[in-house]
């Protein structure tokens, strides 16, 4: 390819990525040359500003249509923008939350810029149209988060968490890649839109079992990122071992990225792929589409994820583990629209992720705040919180209600859409709906259990939790957002409807 062709590309469509990249690089240099004694917290502000800029760029891109550059390996469509937006906001909030300043001696500036590189990977995942870029993005995110989890070199738990994370992650990656390799093998293409086009071909139809095999390998591999069964078990340990803000990062940003890539990989290459089941039509034998034939297994996985998450959460005493399981359960809810293959899938998943971002980040922020005095935050640490610091408690109440899916919170609207997507299809997926019923009711028990702690129990320590301004900021934003999206969901709904045509994802 010619150099000028290279220059012809509309690079502006990558501006957000560039911003993040530059910020990360700059930060690393700054961090390098900054004298040891200097307080690193300035770096966090720098990173934040970088994200702000990136968001601005992203907003400017909203209304221009599909752009593909680097011969169709990078693709900027509404789908990508929508998810990038979430990831940017999520990372921003995590950064705002910051990491415990008292540890800055140990944790250098790498914390912020690793978050950024991870974010970069996520954004690449969101808007890559090629298996290779997709894979690279995935790994960029993974590797950064491996390091982030283990960023506390001297902390045993952190090390162990990191190791578990990388082992499971490695296996997952390998499985995904293996699936991808077959996908490539079937079509000889790595661009997913090319693949989509070729998937209908006879040769694929002959080897449709291989296609199904590839699909499942990829799916299960990616299940690791979104902590869906059967690849969920690493999550509680890692969440517990990692620093709370990083846990938040994993449970939100990396999960959003995971869903982005999963949606793209399910929706794009496999839509026209032939499935296993024969369909006898007057004019000869054809095959149902792959998605139809694998749907029962997706349903199965969704059901398992919901039940496992909610069931095991009942028995948790460590707050971070509790929320680890709860986030597994939420991943299960998020799988429901996929499994049902509802026409609501994009809207439902996006909205729920947005709500999830707010409420979950908020919850982890509170846990982080509680972590200040006693390092292990258990359910009992919430005791008498209302007496200690009422406002934090009210914020936490909002998050919990939202997570439990009580009306007037974002979580409810999200859940409502998910229920709709489960019951809107033909035939209605009552099994999914009932599983969600069971899951939700189980979740009531542990979420409201925290109410019992916060409102009914007496606290040992009477002092209010020390709330830094940054924490207050995060709590305000998330709590307000949760309630706002709960009462006026149209803000988000019309926004995505006006700016994002998710259908762009299909047309190459």
């Amino acid at each position: 390819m010619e150099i000028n062709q290279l220059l012809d590309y509309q690079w502006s469509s990558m501006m957000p990525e560039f911003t993040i990249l530059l910020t990360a690089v700059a930060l690393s240099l700054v961090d390098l040359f900054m004298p040891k004694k200097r307080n690193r917290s300035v770096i966090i502000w720098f990173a934040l500003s970088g994200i702000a800029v990136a968001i601005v760029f992203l907003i400017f891109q909203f209304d221009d249509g599909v752009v593909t550059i680097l011969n169709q390996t990078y693709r900027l469509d509404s789908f990508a923008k929508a998810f990038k937006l979430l990831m940017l906001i999520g990372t921003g909030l995590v950064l705002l939350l910051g990491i415990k300043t008292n540890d800055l001696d140990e944790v250098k500036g790498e914390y912020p810029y690793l978050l950024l590189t991870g974010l970069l990977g996520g954004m690449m995942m969101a808007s890559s149209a090629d298996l290779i870029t997709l894979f690279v993005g995935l790994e960029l995110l993974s590797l950064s988060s491996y390091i982030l989890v283990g960023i506390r070199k001297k902390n045993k738990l952190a090390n162990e968490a990191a190791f578990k994370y990388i082992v499971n992650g490695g296996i997952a990656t390998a499985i995904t890649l293996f699936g991808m390799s077959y996908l490539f093998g079937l079509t000889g293409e790595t661009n997913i839109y090319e693949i989509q086009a070729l998937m209908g071909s006879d040769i694929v139809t002959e080897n449709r079992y291989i296609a199904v095999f590839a699909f499942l390998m990829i799916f299960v591999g990616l299940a690791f990122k979104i902590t869906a069964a059967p690849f969920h078990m690493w999550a509680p340990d890692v969440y517990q071992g990692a620093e709370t803000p990083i846990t938040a990062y994993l449970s939100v940003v990396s999960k959003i990225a995971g869903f982005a890539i999963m949606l793209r990989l399910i929706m794009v290459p496999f839509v026209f792929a032939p499935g296993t089941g024969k369909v006898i039509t007057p004019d000869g034998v054809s095959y149902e589409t792959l998605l139809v034939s694998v749907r029962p297994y997706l349903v199965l996985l969704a059901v398992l994820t919901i039940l496992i998450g909610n069931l095991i959460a009942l028995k948790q005493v460590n707050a971070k583990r509790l929320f680890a399981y709860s986030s597994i359960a939420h991943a299960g809810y998020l799988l429901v629209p996929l499994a049902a293959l509802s026409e609501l899938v994009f809207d439902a998943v996006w909205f729920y992720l947005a709500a999830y971002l707010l409420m979950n980040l908020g919850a982890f922020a509170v846990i982080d705040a509680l972590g200040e005095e006693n390092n292990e935050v258990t359910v009992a640490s919430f005791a008498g919180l209302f007496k200690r610091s009422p406002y934090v408690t009210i914020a936490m109440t909002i998050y919990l209600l939202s997570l439990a899916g009580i009306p007037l919170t974002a979580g409810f609207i999200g859940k409502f859409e998910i229920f709709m997507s489960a019951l809107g299809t033909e035939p209605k997926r009552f099994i999914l709906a009932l599983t969600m019923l069971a899951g939700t009711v189980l979740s009531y028990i542990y979420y409201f259990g925290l109410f019992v702690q916060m409102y009914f129990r007496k606290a040992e320590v009477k002092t209010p939790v020390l709330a830094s301004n940054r924490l207050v900021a995060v709590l305000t934003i998330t709590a307000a957002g949760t309630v706002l999206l709960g009462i006026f969901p149209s803000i988000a709904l019309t926004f995505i409807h006006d700016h994002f045509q998710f259908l762009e994802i299909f047309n190459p």
Partner: protein
Amino acid sequence: MGGILTILILSPLLGVIVLSLMPANHSSVKMIGVFGTVLPLIVTIGVFSLYDRTLSGIQFMESYQWFELMTAISPNEPYPVTYDLGITGLSLLFLMLSALITFLASLAALRIQEGVKGFYMLFLLLEFGILGVFSSENLFLFFLFFEVTLVAMFLLIGKWGGFEREKAAFSFLVYNGIGSILLLIVIIVLFVEFRTMNISELTSLLQESASYEFLSGNTRMWLFLLLLLGFGTKLPIVPLHTWMVRVHIEAPIAVVMIHAGVLLKIGAYGLIRFGAGFFPEQLKETAVILAILGVINLLYGAFIALVQTELRAVLAYSSISHMGIVIIGVASFNTAGLQGAVFQTISHGLIAALLFLLVGVIVDRFQTTKLADLGGVASQTPLFAGFFLAAGLASLGLPGMSGFISEFLAFLGLFEAMPVIGSVGVIGLILTAVYMLRAVLAVTFGERKPQFDKQKDLSAVELVSSAILLSLIIWIGVYPAVLSNTLQMARTLGIGG
């Protein structure tokens, strides 16, 4: 009179706001709390007086677009979620009941000692939910307010309840959670099929035979059963009742007054409004089973109440028994029956409230609700004894009091369709007399107990509130037209038409 319902629903929140701005230990917290319930009462009375009994259909309709759910696949066919308020005669009656009982309960709550501020805030929040439930003309809103009551009740029971309060709170939460989400499933199925959650629209849509291509009779049956299960948990229908007994026994008296007086009625309301309104065919098909369930409730509750040794337990099971009559009325699905069912919910609301008000007095004066430890209090507290006896008689369906009319109508309705089941059911009426007299006489009659000698009789507040309730009970009993006139129109909405 646009917006009056919104005002009505929001009126309790005023109290919440004022309270939230006050210091917790301020002297006038209780006063504000009580006043907070007076406001809705006034508004409700206003609505009641403005309500036009001669018109049919929904009144005070308020309808605004709230938000739309859009799918990326077909963005031009949105699912509109609207904010619809409006009342029929049926809901009007329930509104009156709720406002009144909440007010009286707030008076009964004056005894609460610690955490008064929080109590009244939640209490008003609860009222907000209840009023919302009864005045929403939209399933989405209905569910929303329903959940509000759920949360408020959980906290009220769990913090201010008795010895096993948290257990009670959780079983309340779980059972009602299941019920509410079953309801949600039904709502959503209807929503995705008909793209509306407006109750009257849905009612008419579902009545059209054309709509069967959207929703097959089979699916409808399932939906109806889900609905029955959901509201049956609330009502409650045996065997889904254990949570409710626990709440009756553990929750603070004021809350029990609301719970037994109003919240249980949401189940009846839903069953009549949606069960009978949306799925009349299915209701007719299952009428016999429903009637049998009702009779089982009636007898089951009565028999168990017969051998309880604890007054609150007796009353809890008597509630179950009385709700059986509601089910019977709905099952008979003729005018008499449905009217009876509504009457029964209203009358039981008043009677249960009165009974628990007096139980509150017992707890306050005699520090026990064990039947064995009570007795002969008619000597020391004749006024109380008189009211308690009257309440008991009302609850066992004495003519001239509201209980009789409702039982009479419900059974009258049942006897048209299923005389045999009916004649089994009437045994319940005998048993009701037996356990009620047993309980009431055990408290009031018998040898004078010296340890109660210095107990004071009803205080002014208690006297007034009991008098209000009793006079209403008698008024309805003597002149039932005050209910039936208001109700006539509710029926023309195709409810049991």
